[in-house]
């Protein structure tokens, strides 16, 4: 509930970011209610209507198999949500936990952070590519790989924030009141980290979309039959001149969603504790 008021306050007076938030809401609704909204099965092939232009009954036209682009785009929204939320969860659960604990228990923490440094020596997409080489192409693996890539930065960020928070006077005060480690970590420190974590999650969500699209494009992401915006672009790229709508619709959807998420993240970041602002690597 507090996070919701935090978001509401951050959006106050920021028209573009509010528009972004509304767009994201539409994506969320479309993703959840995809079967109700999509007029066709995203995998259904209509051989006669291959590469038909936008109109009726195919709102966004069809691809080279004759599949309805609009329906695929709506299911793509669902996939975007799954990838985004999944990656954020993996990044926060792995990276967030490692970073927080490392920052709190600094003895072990510095060793853990050195290991994170080693992983960070691999540029993000390259690390994802290498991991995908070893793994099968699947939705789960794509989420895992993107999540791990951003877990490293998340660990770093939370480590830094924890070091700052741990030296706060009110933490000393809580210790003097007799609070133990668990109480310090979860009652006193974590609530102060929630809004910066939310901001970080917003940016991870945005980046994950771009990474997933890039992986799809390189043929190393989601399985080709999965209706995702990235796959739609990857499969239809050769029709860019013959059927430009095939690339415009999914492309614009990705851009709008990432842009909205970045706008939202930016608006939220302006509201968090200024000490944490520089820690969060966003746009």
């Amino acid at each position: 509930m507090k996070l919701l008021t935090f978001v509401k306050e951050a959006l106050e007076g920021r028209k573009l970011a509010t528009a972004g938030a509304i767009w994201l809401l539409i994506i969320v609704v479309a993703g959840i209610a995809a079967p109700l909204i999509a007029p066709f099965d995203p995998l259904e092939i209509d051989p006669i209507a291959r590469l038909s232009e936008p109109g009726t009954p195919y709102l966004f036209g069809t691809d080279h198999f004759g599949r309805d682009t609009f329906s695929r785009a709506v299911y793509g929204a669902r996939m975007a949500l799954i990838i985004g939320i999944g990656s954020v969860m993996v990044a926060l659960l792995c990276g967030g936990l490692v970073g927080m604990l490392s920052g709190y228990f600094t003895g072990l923490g510095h060793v853990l952070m050195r290991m994170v440094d080693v992983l960070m020596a691999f540029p993000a997409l390259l690390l994802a590519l290498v991991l995908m080489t070893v793994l099968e192409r699947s939705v789960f693996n794509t989420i895992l790989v993107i999540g791990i890539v951003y877990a490293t930065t998340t660990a770093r960020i939370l480590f830094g924030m924890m070091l700052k928070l741990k030296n706060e006077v009110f933490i000393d005060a809580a210790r003097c009141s007799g609070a133990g480690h668990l109480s310090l970590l979860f009652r006193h420190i974590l609530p102060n980290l929630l809004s910066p974590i939310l901001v970080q999650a917003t940016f991870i969500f945005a980046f994950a979309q771009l990474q997933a699209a890039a992986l799809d494009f390189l043929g190393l992401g989601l399985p080709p039959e999965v209706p995702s915006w990235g796959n739609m672009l990857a499969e239809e790229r050769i029709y860019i001149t013959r059927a430009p709508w095939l690339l415009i619709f999914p492309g614009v959807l990705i851009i709008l969603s990432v842009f909205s998420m970045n706008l939202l993240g930016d608006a939220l970041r302006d509201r968090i504790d200024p000490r944490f602002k520089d820690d969060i690597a966003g746009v």
Partner: protein
Amino acid sequence: MSNTPLLDVKALNVVFRTKSSGKLLATNRNHAVKNVSFSVHAGEVLSLVGESGCGKTTIGRILTGLESAESGTANFQGDNILGLSNAGFRPLRKHIQMIFQDPYASLNPRLTIEKILSEPLFIHKLVRNRVEARTRMAAMLKQVGLDPDALKRYPHEFSGGQRQRIGIARVMLVSPRIIIADEAVSALDVSIQAQVLNLLKKLQRSSGVAMLFISHDLAVVRHISDRIAVMYQGEIVELNDKQQIFENPQHEYTRLLLSSIPQVKARSTP
């Protein structure tokens, strides 16, 4: 005043090690507190006074278990409290409490005053339930000059002086034996500082709690203490009754400090 002191610090040494940037493995050693000894008796106010970097704050943090010492002992009611683990120190926290300098930083911005104040009550099992806790907290807030309504509010809704009163309430709620007050009034405006000083003095008198009052301000120190220890570069250079310190300073540094303070010479006279 009984013969055995409540808190007896002997030969305390603190060394901070920081990584030296020039050499690879070398560390810089900063001997922050050198061979410091003093004692605080029950019901007494002892002040540590000195300029920034003299080690006074470090001593306060050591005695509340927030930092560790290199060597020395600190006997509280006969038992050495140095070198205790976080858990080992916990039972002592009911008896040794701390007031912090910055009223804006010492209250968790995410917690209501009720949560902040009730925490030590529950940890030290001083109350059985919320209702009892609330009664205790409301009474204490009245004592420090705040409305019991404050419980429902967050720290940012209060002014600096009010927050410091809340900090004092948190400390007094557990009825400690000794309070370590680290620059407790330094961050406050002159008129608020006077209010809080009066409050501290009143509570100290009425409860009989001992106090280690850490400050850079000699005038404030004179007002509140029984005895004063003057610190310079990690050492206590002079420790005496306050009358002696002010009227008959022995150490050169004490004299320098006293002569450096700008004063309002003319007083309000008819």
